[in-house]
Every structure is written in structure tokens, then in C-alpha cells.
């Protein structure tokens, strides 16, 4: 018997346990990547069952298949263009009505759908009696009850998938009818399409007609490239206007009404609800958590705990990693004869690997916490609570968490923007995140504050954090009104019931993120470290980071640019350039160049800076190009070099302007 690979796509709303089913099906045999050319995550897995091999694709969680978000476009394009053998639609049994809206669209798409009534145990607990056979008869598709967290029903899904994939005859799937008037126009348009057009990507004429009446931008865009489509598109526009006149409402409303009408009928016939609706545990929890008075304090406490756990728990591990690589570098340089090879191994390669691995503890811990918050349902509440504030600066409620995390480290903070589904909100949050002053900048502030403002150290450091936030807000406002205009997302968001998250799911989630960082961003960080090493060590024979090294030469050349900011000295330029590796390295570089140990650094700095130029320098350190780990992670998250390069350029420009204002303004006001 030939073994054929069966391709299964998993579709479903967010928060229905789709990824739990995916994990139950594929176990550890998963691969996480990106959809080609998109920033949307693609999860694939394989499995063998009863002599068949399966490839399972986890589509992004969506509520619908219109071209509303990039997730929906990705999911739909895959279903329409790649035509998986079977689509398993995972639905939340406790919330069938809204979930079935997607089922109807999947059936309309012509997909071979299996309906997985997930969380059927929770539905039973709520007193819902669901007749899955009746639903199956009404929709003409197989329906199976599952409890993904207990792996119940998962085998049955595979049995059905094997059977369905083998079926060649026309399916008995029922087709939704939209009422006489609407249906007549859909048919008219369908006939016109099948006569005139060679449809691309396996679109069916009826589906295309429906999408045109829905004024679906993506379908229209794709049809524009097809011969003779102008006539069809014009006819579709006219039909839309006509229908609007007939019904007194737009076609979108009529279509949605018809779909929900069908669902209401189906639910009435096949689901028995308990007579009295008990107040659920989830509602009880929510009464406290999003309470008018308690909501914000609880949220702030949650943020504080997340921040503390991420950075405090990881701190000793980070120190260990740091010490280990420091020791390794020393050992290496001691055992290799002095020279550029020894330096390459210890200062280049070992410190390069070290600066990648140092991020592992905070990233893994953070993503474990984020997974727990998301799976428990709290993340949506956090967005609900913060949305008003964030909306004022052109952001989304969900942007708040990444912004706060930026105070710890911008790398995991930028990775945390994955919870934002809208591209504009996500990009904006990524672009202004570097202004949130991360932990690595703090040692620089502390050193300078101690050297120049011994009586106001706290105030100086605090002012820099505030300045960073203000610049982030101002740039958020500017960017959302210019570069990232008109792509904003409305805040129409489900507040899913609170659930106890599964540890397994959270751990898998953590592992995916962490390993992704290592694979993708790690190589870039490593390359940058080696590059900076090479620039500091050559031409051969120069001392590390000396004025004669390439780095020193570049520093000397660009130093005049910083003259108006008060630190036009080549040493400052070199320190800033090495700060690109990691901001705290600025201190080490000053130590090396001045040829002093840490204790003598303050005195050496006092000779080269005035209090005003020192403050101006700190402002520049706060705002200029984020470290290369951030650049690498922006490249990874936006899937292009455009945005990381833009970030590097615009943050540095902003830093120059603000430091200029601070220094020149300070001079005018009589400070020195």
C-alpha cells in the first residue's frame, strides 16, 4: 500500500484550545517559522497514524475569513490556494454560536471540514447538552467531541481525516442560502464570473461572487490581475449598491445576518441549555480583577511581579553565564599564545557566544509568564484596563506590556509584541520600544551621575527614565500620524473566560520563543560582536580599541559630529560605537581607552566632560541606536532589514537632536 501524506489544517478562533490539539496531534515533532514574506508565525508538525503520514498546519487563530487582519489573510490564502486535504475546525463547545460563524465560512470555501467540539467537558459542566449528530446532519460535516487537554477525541479526528481525505465523491456538505433576493444576485454574479473569468488559485465562482459582494479587498486585488475582470468587478459594485437599496442596509449586514440566522436555528435544534444561567466562576473572578477600583492596582501588581520575576530571577543566571564566559575567555587567552588569534577567540568568539546566551534566562522566564497570562485569560483583561491610556498615544491596550518590559530589556520586550495581532500597532510598539530605558543603560547613568552629580544622583537617573518615556510617547504620536498612518486596529476584542493554564502548553510556548531567538537573532548578534572585535583589533599590531585601530579611526572621523552636543572627543565616539554591542560596554571602553581601572574612571571622566556635557552624553546614550541584540530581534520580528535599519537611523537622529537641545539650551541658560 502506498502511504500518502495527508495534509491537515487546523482552523479556529483564538482561545479555543487549538494549539493544545496541535500539540496533542504532533507532540514534539513541530517546526515553528514564518509564513513566507509575512510576520505571522507558521507552525507545522508531522505524525504517523495507522499507516498514514500526516502533515499538520496550525493556521493563525481567527474569528472569520474576511481580509480583516494579516492573520485572516494568511489563513484564507492557505486554505484557498494550497487546498489542504482536510480542515479540522476546533471550536469552543461552551460558545458555539460565535464559533460556528467561522465553520460556515470554511464550508463556503469548499473545504473538507471536520468540526471538533473542543472543551466538551466544560460544556457539560455548564449544563449544555449538545447533540453532535444533529449538528453533523444539519451541516453535512463530521462532528466530534473532544477534550484536548486530556487528549480525548484526538484519535477519532484522525480516523475521520483519513476517511475524508480518501473521499472523492461530491460532498454532502450543506450550502447556506442567503434568502431569495440575495441568492439570486449571488447566482447572477457567479454565472457571470464562470463565463468571463479564468479564476486563479482554485477560487470557486460562487465563493468569488460572495466575496465580491462582501467587497473583499484582497479578492478584488487579486482579481484585478485577471483578464476581463473589470467587467465583473463593475457588475459586483452595481449589485452591492442595488442590494443596499433593496434591503436598506449594506450587504455585509445582510450576509452576516443570514449566517447568524442559520446558526441560531441550528443551535436551537441541537443544543439544550440549562433553564437557569448560573453565574460562572469566571464572571466572579472578573468582578474583582477588572473592578472599577481594584482593576488598576491589581494590574500594576501583576506587572510588577512579572517584571520582578523576569529580571530578578534571571539575574543570578545571567551573572553565572557572564562569569562563565569571562572565565572561558581568560582561560582561552592564557592557553593560546598572545596575538590576534588569542584575541579573536577570547574577545571575539567567546564573548560573542556569551552575549547571545546571556539573554536566555530573561527570555525564557518572560515567555513562560506571558504564556501563563495569555492562557489564563488575564492578558485580554490587561489590555482592556490599559486601552484608554494607550489609545491616546495611538497604541493598543496590548502595547502596554511590551512598553513596561522595555525597562528591563528591549529584546524580550520587542518579542512580547507578538501578542499584538495588528501590524500597525505591533510595528509602532516595536519602533518606540528602544526609548524605554533598559537595564543595561543604568550602569552608565550611575557612573556618570556619581562622577558629576554626586548630590542629585537619583534625580538625574530618574529624569533620564522620564525623558525616555516622553520621547517614546512623542515619537508614537508622530509615527502614528505619519509613517504608520491609517492602518490602525479597532479595539474589538474577546474577553475569554478565565481558565487554568496547562504547564505543558506554557512550556512548549516558552521553548518555541526561546529557541527562535537563539536561531535567528543569535547569529546576527554573534556576527556583530565579531565585527566590532575586528574593527577594534586591526590593523594588526594596534592596541585593542586604540585611536589607530579601525574603530579609533572611524571614531576620530565622526567625533566632530558630536561637537555641538558637548562631547566631540574621539574617545566618546569610540565608546558610543562599542555601546552598540551592549550599552553597558560604554563604561568598559572608557576604562580601556583612558587606561584606568574602574576606580579611577570617575576622575578620568571629570577631565574630559563637564556636568552639562556629561548629561548630554547620557541623553545620547539613552536615545541613540539600541544595542545590536535589539536590532537583530527587530529584524527577526519584522522579517525584513527595513525596520531595524530605520530604527537605527531614526533613534540616532532623535538622540542627536535631543542632546543638542539639552547641551545648547543648557549653555544658553548658563550651565556648564
Amino acid at each position: 500500500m502506498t502511504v500518502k501524506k495527508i495534509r491537515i489544517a487546523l482552523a479556529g478562533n483564538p482561545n479555543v484550545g487549538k494549539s493544545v490539539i496541535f500539540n496533542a496531534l504532533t507532540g514534539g515533532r513541530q517546526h515553528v517559522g514564518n509564513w513566507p514574506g509575512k510576520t505571522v508565525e507558521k507552525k507545522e508538525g508531522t505524525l504517523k497514524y495507522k499507516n498514514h503520514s500526516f502533515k499538520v498546519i496550525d493556521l493563525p487563530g481567527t474569528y472569520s475569513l474576511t481580509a480583516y487582519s494579516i492573520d485572516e489573510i494568511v489563513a484564507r490564502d492557505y486554505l484557498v490556494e494550497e487546498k489542504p486535504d482536510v480542515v479540522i475546525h476546533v471550536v469552543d463547545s461552551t460558545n458555539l454560536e460565535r464559533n460556528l460563524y467561522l465553520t460556515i465560512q470554511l464550508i463556503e470555501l469548499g473545504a473538507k471540514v471536520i468540526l471538533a467540539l473542543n472543551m466538551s467537558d466544560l460544556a457539560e459542566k455548564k449544563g449544555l447538552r449538545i447533540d453532535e449528530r444533529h449538528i453533523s446532519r444539519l451541516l453535512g460535516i463530521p462532528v466530534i467531541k473532544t477534550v484536548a487537554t486530556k487528549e480525548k477525541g484526538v484519535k477519532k479526528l484522525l480516523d475521520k481525516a483519513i476517511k475524508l481525505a480518501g473521499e472523492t465523491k461530491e460532498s454532502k456538505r450543506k450550502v447556506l442560502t442567503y434568502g431569495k433576493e440575495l441568492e439570486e444576485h449571488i447566482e447572477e454574479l457567479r454565472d457571470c464570473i464562470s463565463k468571463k473569468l479564468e479564476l486563479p488559485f482554485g477560487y470557486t465562482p460562487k465563493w468569488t461572487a460572495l466575496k465580491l459582494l462582501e467587497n473583499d479587498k484582497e479578492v478584488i486585488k487579486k482579481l484585478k490581475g485577471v483578464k476581463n475582470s473589470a467587467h465583473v468587478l463593475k457588475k459586483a459594485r452595481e449589485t452591492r449598491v442595488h442590494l443596499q437599496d433593496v434591503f436598506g442596509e449594506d450587504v455585509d449586514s445582510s450576509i452576516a445576518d443570514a449566517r447568524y440566522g442559520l446558526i441560531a436555528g441550528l443551535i436551537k435544534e441541537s443544543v439544550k441549555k440549562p433553564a437557569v444561567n448560573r453565574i460562572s466562576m469566571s464572571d466572579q473572578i472578573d468582578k474583582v480583577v477588572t473592578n472599577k477600583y481594584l482593576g488598576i492596582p491589581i494590574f500594576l501588581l501583576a506587572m510588577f511581579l512579572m517584571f520582578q520575576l523576569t529580571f530578578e530571577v534571571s539575574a543570578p543566571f545571567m551573572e553565572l553565564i557572564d562569569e562563565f564566559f569571562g572565565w572561558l575567555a581568560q582561560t582561552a587567552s592564557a592557553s593560546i599564545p598572545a596575538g590576534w588569534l588569542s584575541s579573536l577567540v577570547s574577545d571575539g568568539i567567546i564573548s560573542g557566544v556569551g552575549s547571545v546566551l546571556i539573554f536566555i534566562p530573561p527570555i525564557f522566564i518572560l515567555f513562560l509568564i506571558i504564556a501563563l497570562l495569555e492562557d489564563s485569560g488575564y492578558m485580554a483583561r490587561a489590555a482592556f484596563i490599559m486601552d484608554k491610556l494607550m489609545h491616546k498615544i495611538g497604541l493598543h491596550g496590548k502595547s502596554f506590556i511590551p512598553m513596561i518590559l522595555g525597562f528591563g530589556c528591549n529584546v524580550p520586550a520587542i518579542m512580547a509584541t507578538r501578542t499584538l495581532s495588528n501590524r500597525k500597532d505591533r510595528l509602532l510598539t516595536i519602533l518606540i520600544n528602544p526609548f524605554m530605558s533598559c537595564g543595561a543603560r543604568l550602569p552608565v547613568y550611575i557612573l556618570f551621575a556619581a562622577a558629576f552629580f554626586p548630590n542629585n544622583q537619583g534625580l538625574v537617573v530618574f529624569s533620564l527614565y522620564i525623558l525616555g518615556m516622553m520621547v517614546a510617547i512623542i515619537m508614537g504620536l508622530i509615527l502614528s500620524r505619519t509613517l504608520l498612518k491609517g492602518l490602525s486596529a479597532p479595539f474589538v476584542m474577546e474577553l475569554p473566560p478565565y481558565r487554568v493554564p496547562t504547564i505543558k502548553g506554557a512550556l512548549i510556548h516558552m521553548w518555541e520563543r526561546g529557541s527562535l531567538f537563539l536561531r535567528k537573532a543569535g547569529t546576527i548578534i554573534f556576527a556583530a560582536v565579531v565585527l566590532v572585535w575586528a574593527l577594534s583589533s586591526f590593523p594588526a599590531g594596534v592596541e585593542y580599541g586604540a585611536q589607530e585601530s579601525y574603530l579609533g579611526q572611524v571614531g576620530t572621523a565622526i567625533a566632530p559630529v558630536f561637537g555641538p552636543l558637548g562631547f566631540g572627543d574621539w574617545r566618546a565616539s569610540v565608546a558610543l560605537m562599542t555601546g552598540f554591542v551592549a550599552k553597558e560596554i560604554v563604561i568598559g571602553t572608557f576604562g580601556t581607552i583612558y587606561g584606568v581601572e574602574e576606580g579611577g574612571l570617575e576622575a578620568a571622566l571629570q577631565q574630559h566632560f563637564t556636568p552639562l556635557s556629561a548629561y548630554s552624553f547620557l541623553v545620547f546614550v539613552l536615545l541613540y541606536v539600541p544595542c545590536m541584540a535589539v536590532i537583530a530581534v527587530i529584524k527577526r520580528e519584522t522579517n525584513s532589514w527595513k525596520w531595524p535599519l530605520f530604527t537605527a537611523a531614526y533613534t540616532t537622529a532623535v538622540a542627536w537632536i535631543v542632546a543638542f537641545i539639552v547641551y545648547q539650551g543648557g549653555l544658553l541658560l548658563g550651565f556648564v
Partner: protein
Amino acid sequence: MEVEMEMTLDKLKPKQKGKILSSKGSGDVHRRLLEMGLVKGAVVEVEKVAPLGDPIEVKVKGYHLSLRKEEAAKLAVELL
């Protein structure tokens, strides 16, 4: 002469219920609201207002949905 204020979803108070009469919006937001179940005839109950006064949380079709007042203002409702 009687001036009748049109009732919209954003004006409902917590624990009040309304039936959706029409949706005035257009474009993507409008379509999203429809998809999430805010169709004509649907019964909506306002659960609460966020601590900062916006957005609101409603119950519709058996689940909880949050939306901003500016979006809720586009939905005409009949107070039940």
C-alpha cells in the same frame, strides 16, 4: 415637539440590555462587529466599563466582548 434621542450601545449602563436595531458604521470595523455577533436583532448586555472609563465590556451571543465607546456608538439599540 418631541425630540427623541437615539439610543446607542455606548449609552447603556452596566446591567442594561439592548437589542441591536442597526449598525451605522462602514468598512472593516463595521464588518468586524458583525462577525463578532453584533448583528441586527442580537441582544447585548453591558457588563462593565473599564476602570478608566473606556472601553466597555458587553455580553453577546453567550460570550464577553470588549469594544471602545466610539465603536459602540455606531450601534443603534432598543433598550430592553
